[in-house]
């Protein structure tokens, strides 16, 4: 499924899949005919209740994402390793207020948490603060609108940093301490926080939350880059 012009969601059928936790990722390895291999990590977008979906953003100079976004066809076989991660994970049984801060495709593992909360009937109050360049770049926009409209304690706050449509009433700048102060819970609510995005984004968001008095150990971060291991 094409989410935005640069982002696509792929559904995987993994034999022997042990199940995953919201927030985990997979390593995808591609091997060329000459034996050259390239490997990258991709977050699982689906709730644990819903199989394995990866949402991938195409990086124009990437070795794996152009294939996954533009070329992969139904029935193609790829090599995966995972699920991976026991730190950046969240369980819907957790009743602590949940603050999710996403930069661009950093929303993917956080979407798994949002979907897990909805599927499992989680009752923790949840806020997703989601920074995108333009409205067209917002991944899962209609699904997030629907989930937020349920009125079951999920609030979604968008900020568009590069371009805003006419009549846009949301935020229109990068996430900064002032923005976080307006939308995040006070530190006294002791929320559990997950931040995912580029290194710069994560550092800015985490610094902003620390400035609000959040405990360092309450903030779990995941930085992504263009290179793999």
């Amino acid at each position, binding site marked *: 499924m094409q989410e935005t012009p640069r982002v696509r969601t792929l559904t995987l059928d993994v034999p022997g899949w042990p199940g995953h936790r919201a927030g985990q990722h997979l390593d995808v390895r591609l091997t060329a005919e000459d034996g050259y291999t390239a490997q990258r990590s991709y977050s699982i977008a689906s709730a644990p209740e819903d199989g394995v979906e990866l949402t991938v953003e195409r990086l124009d100079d990437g070795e794996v994402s152009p294939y996954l976004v533009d070329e992969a066809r139904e029935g193609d076989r790829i090599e995966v*390793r995972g699920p*991976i*991660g026991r730190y950046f994970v969240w369980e819907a049984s957790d009743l602590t207020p949940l603050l999710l801060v996403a930069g661009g495709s950093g929303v993917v593992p956080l979407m798994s948490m949002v979907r897990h909360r909805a599927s499992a009937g989680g009752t923790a109050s949840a806020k997703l603060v989601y920074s995108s360049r333009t409205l067209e770049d917002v991944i899962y926009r209609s699904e997030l609108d629907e989930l937020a409209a349920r009125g079951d304690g999920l609030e979604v706050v968008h900020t568009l940093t590069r371009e805003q449509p006419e009549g846009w009433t949301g935020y229109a700048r990068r996430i900064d301490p002032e923005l976080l102060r307006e939308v995040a819970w006070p530190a006294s609510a002791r929320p559990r926080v997950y931040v995912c995005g580029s*290194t710069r984004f994560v*550092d800015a968001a985490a610094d902003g939350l620390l400035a609000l008095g959040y405990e360092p150990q309450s903030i779990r*971060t995941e*930085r992504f880059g263009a290179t793999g*291991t």
Partner: protein
Amino acid sequence: METRDLRLDGNAIGGLLLEVFGVDMTAAPSVCASCGSREAVARLDVYVNAPGVVVRCCHCEAVMIRIVQGGGRTWLDLSGTGCLELG
């Protein structure tokens, strides 16, 4: 792009550590041999653009772990790590 933009965290090498240690290490507590800080591996600074992987303490920036793979072999340098808890 600046060097600071290349800094990832321990989540990024979760798959590699799973391969090396046989268990998921991202939530494993680690102790820096230089400053004594205790943090989950996922919170450590990770650079994957070096020849191999370099893991640094997120407090004092000392090198804690180096992993190099090639020719079907893996070299693991833990001399900067005081303790690593596998569970």
